[in-house]
Every structure is written in structure tokens, then in C-alpha cells.
């Protein structure tokens, strides 16, 4: 009995130090949330959100983030499938390239986008000539958001496809389905959870994108750029309403990801 107590005590004491350190981090993460939410009483959140400027920002953000997410998904899911199923020379280089935007500072990403698609670059000027503005426009926002957020759906969907035993796909081919039919009937449904998680993360990242967007298209305003402008003009309390709205979106996204976001273990043995 006493040895049992002793072992428990030792087990507890061995976890004491990591628990203390980890606890410190948890507190540090929690405090800003509490502090920020505590401010909501001082600002008239609903009234401020009803103002035209805030409404426009919310609408712009929803519109551009949805567009960016669709573009990233339509192009990213096929890329993820190819990366999961084929090996070819230079594949590692491609894989490095696709996760680069995840680690690149968004401001630098924005600068790079400007050098490639700015008004006076070859591509930018051709687009301008036919009446398309690649910067300072909705398209500019979508370009910035897609660049920064697309890797999420590619990386997550790739993991989902990779977890599918490729013998399932061979079985489907032998049962009469083409490669495309097999993708639609086997790979896509089995990777659905992972793809949905990737889509949701991409949407959240696009909604929150500030650095690259501000460089490429500070106008029209999205929620993050609106927050920045409000902060410059009115200080921290001016930020609270739109900030809260973004926080709400983020929490909803987190809920969805936790719900669907497990990478499926596909083949039962």
C-alpha cells in the first residue's frame, strides 16, 4: 500500500515540471481572450457592426474568402491527389514550394505578389489593358488570400489521400471504373473528412489574411484591413466589434474542423 502511494507520488512529481511550464503557456494564451472579451461591455458592438463601413468589410471578407477558398480547393485538391499518388523527379521541390507560403511572412508574400502582378509588371499591365486590375481590387484580395491560404487545403487533402490504401483504387479500376471514376467514387469520398478540414482551414486563413492583402489591395477593405484602419483612427476600442466578428468566425471554423477533421484511417485490417 505504502509503495503504491509512493509510486503515485513519484509519478506525479515527474510530471510536475512539465505541467507547470505547460500551464504557464495555457494561461498566457487564455489571458488575451479574456481581456479582449472583457472589453466588449465598453463598446457598443452591435451598433458598430451595423455601420455601413463594418458591413462592407464583413461582406467583402465573406465574398473574397469564399472565392479564394473555391479557387484553392478546385486547383489544390487535384494537386494533393497527384502528390499523394505519384512519385516523379522534383517532387520534393514541389512539396517544398507548396508549403513555403505557410512559413513565409505574409508581408513578404505581398511584396512578392506585387513584383509579379503589380500594375507596372508585364502581367499586371496586360491585365490592366484588358480592364482587369490585379491590385487594389477584389481580384487583388483574392490573389493574396489564395497565395497564403491554399497550402492548407493541399497539405491536408494530401494527407487524406495518402491514408487511402491504393489497392482500393486498383480494385475499383478492375471493377470497371476509369481513373477519374475511381477518384470520384473511392478517393474523394474516403478523403472527404480531410478535404473538408483543409477547406475550412483555408477559409479561416483567408478570412484572417492581413499582411499580404494590405500590400496588394488595401482597398476595398476586408475585415482585417478595416480593423487596422479602425485601430489607427480610434484606438483599441474601435477594433473590438469587427475583431469579435472575426473571432466568432474562427471559433465556428475550429468547431467544424474538430468535427470533420480527422484524417480517416481507411483500410481496416
Amino acid at each position, binding site marked *: 500500500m505504502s509503495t503504491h502511494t509512493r509510486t503515485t507520488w513519484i509519478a506525479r512529481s515527474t510530471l510536475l515540471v512539465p505541467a507547470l511550464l505547460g500551464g504557464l503557456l495555457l494561461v498566457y494564451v487564455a489571458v488575451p481572450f479574456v481581456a479582449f472579451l472583457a472589453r466588449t461591455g465598453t463598446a457598443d458592438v452591435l451598433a458598430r457592426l451595423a455601420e455601413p463601413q463594418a458591413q462592407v468589410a464583413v461582406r467583402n471578407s465573406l465574398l473574397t474568402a469564399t472565392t479564394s477558398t473555391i479557387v484553392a480547393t478546385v486547383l489544390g485538391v487535384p494537386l494533393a491527389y497527384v502528390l499523394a499518388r505519384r512519385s516523379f523527379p522534383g517532387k520534393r521541390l514541389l512539396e517544398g514550394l507548396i508549403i513555403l507560403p505557410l512559413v513565409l511572412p505574409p508581408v513578404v508574400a505581398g511584396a512578392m505578389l506585387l513584383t509579379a502582378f503589380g500594375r507596372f509588371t508585364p502581367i499586371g499591365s496586360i491585365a490592366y489593358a484588358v480592364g482587369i486590375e490585379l491590385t487594389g481590387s477584389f481580384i487583388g484580395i483574392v490573389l493574396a488570400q489564395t497565395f497564403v491560404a491554399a497550402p492548407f487545403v493541399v497539405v491536408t487533402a494530401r494527407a487524406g489521400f495518402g491514408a487511402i*490504401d491504393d489497392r482500393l483504387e*486498383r480494385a475499383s*479500376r*478492375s*471493377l470497371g*471504373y476509369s481513373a477519374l471514376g475511381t477518384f470520384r467514387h473511392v478517393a474523394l469520398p474516403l478523403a472527404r473528412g480531410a478535404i473538408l478540414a483543409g477547406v475550412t482551414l483555408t477559409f479561416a486563413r483567408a478570412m484572417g489574411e492581413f499582411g499580404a492583402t494590405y500590400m496588394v489591395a488595401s482597398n476595398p477593405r476586408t475585415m482585417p484591413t478595416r480593423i487596422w484602419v479602425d485601430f489607427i483612427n480610434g484606438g483599441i476600442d474601435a477594433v473590438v466589434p469587427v475583431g469579435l466578428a472575426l473571432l466568432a468566425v474562427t471559433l465556428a471554423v475550429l468547431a467544424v474542423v474538430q468535427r470533420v477533421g480527422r484524417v480517416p484511417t481507411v*483500410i*481496416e*485490417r
Partner: protein
Amino acid sequence: MTLEVVDLTHRYGDELVLEDISFEVETGEIIGLLGPSGCGKTTTVQAIAGHVNPTAGRIHLRGEDITADPPERRDIGVVFQEPTLFPHMTVGENVAYGLRPAGFDPDERAATVDRYLELVSLSEQREAMPAALSGGQKRRVELARALAPQPDVLLLDEPLSALDRGLRDQLREEIARIQRETGVTTLYVTHDQETAMALSDRLVVMADGAIAGVGEPRKLYESPSTPFVASFLGRSTRLPLTPPGDPGLTLESRALAGDGGTPADTGRICLARPSNLTLLDSEQPKAEYTLAGVVERVTDLGTRYEVVLTLDAGGKLTVETQRVQLESGDRARCTIDGTDLLLFEELPERVGPVY
């Protein structure tokens, strides 16, 4: 004939895994493709199914060259080594999966699913998800799924190797029954000679990426085409061959005399089934042809004993016997009927080790 494999050759990089594989499968026949692990069996079936693109050689199905066709255009059903049921579909949906591309009407599909689930005695499980099935049930659903579109050929790639013995024997019987009832032309891949002998009309034995023998199971067992087949199909033990006139090895001269009068010498391999060798009691009069040696060990295998002799003439010999009074270290003699000897020219070997 339904399926014809012609000079199939395959390389993975520099490694030659298949070399000039040729065999035919007649309509309605069940062929056992037998060989040890790594001999190229699975590559062969994957090439037939279209999942491996062979380096050289042709595959003909009902007289048509299908070598370049993708798997979905081949009308070949496959049951893989590991379960491949679609986990997001019910048992019924799995079985129905191949019916739409095969051109079945929606009404026909439901009836066909019913029929094939009944064939594998799983009608009750129609609405179940694959995860809820036992290992044996999964195999049966896969069999039904592969058969439902009525393929020209059914490929079974070691479908039972992951199951335990009792279940394996039971399913083997069931596969034999289903094959009889449907009459589907079948290529059954296995490394288990017992399964292969029990199921097959004919055997194709493979070793090291090449064919070592083709024939009816019993004929191939009784007169194996190569030393490899002799040792892989059943067991065999090697008898020493020395030039004629060597005292104590009259056996060889007799056997070889019966084989057209060629003198015993090098360049030949002589094998015997351990069950065809007979131990002689010391009191028995000296038999005409004997091999003498010292008992190295005696192993009790329950249904029989196995005696390993170190021969005076060199080499070791395994004898199977029902009764034994010998212990290791004893001297012993054994004999064999000359007609039971298996003689091979020692060809430049391409089929790998003899044992």
C-alpha cells in the same frame, strides 16, 4: 482458350522479376499459380489485371491482345491478398459497384446483388458495413463483388493467406464450390502447395521469376519436371551419385541402368520422396540395393517419424517412416524401389536452389 500469357517479362529498375513467362488458361479451368514468396506470382497477376505494365510480352484474353488496355477495360475480376472492400459502402453497395460499368440495368443490379450474396451465403449482411464483418465474411463479399459483373477471368491473389487454418480450409472448399457453380475461368495464386493441389485442374509452378513446371497436380507431383518442382511440390531428399562400381552404391547403377543404360556419373541429380524410402532392419537379409549410414536424428511428427541419415557415401538423406527403433548414432540402411527415383539432368540451373 480464355487467357494466354506470352513471354511475359518484367523488370523493376535493374532487377529482373519475370522472365519469359508463358502459360494458358482454358475456359472454365482453375489454374493454380504456385511458387514461393518473391517468385513473381503477384507481379504476374498484376500484369494480367493491368495494374502492372510489363516490360515485354503479351497478354491475350479471348484471342484479343489486351496488353495495352487499362484495367477497367479488361473484364478481369480480382481478389487481392489484403481486403479491399470500400469502407464507405455497405456490403450490397460493394457487390453492386462493378455492375453499372458492366452495363447492368438498375433492376438487374439489385437482382444480381441478391444472387451473388446468396452464392456466398451473406444475404443477411446486405446492409452491413464492411467494418462489421469477420475476416472470412469480408473475403466472401470480395469474391461476390469480383464475380458479380461476370468477368471473363477471375484472379485470386493469395486470398486466404491472411486467415487462420480452420477458416482457410473452409473457405477453400467454398471457393471450389463457387468456381464449380459459376464455371468462371480462374487463376488462383498461392504459395501453399496443399491449397494449389486441392483446388487446381492444372498447376503452373514458378521459381525465381520463371516457370519451373506446368501440368496436372498429380502428374506434376509424380513426375516433376525439375528438381525445384520435386522439392516444392511435396518433399524430396537428394541421393548421392558417384561413378559406377563404387561399393555400397549399387542403387544408382540399377536405377540408371533402368534409365536407358547410361552410366551413373556426374551431371545428374537423383531425388527421392522421403516417404518412398524404406528403413531396413539389421536382421533382414542384405537387400539388393541399399544406402548405409549413421542416424543423425529422429523426429516424432505425430503421424509419422522423420529419420535423417548421414550417408557413408556422403550427403544426408531424409526417410519418413511409421515405426522406428533407431536412435541417433545407430547405423542404419535403407532402400528404395528403383521406379520411385526422380532423375534429372543437371541443367544449367535457372530455377534457383534445389532445396
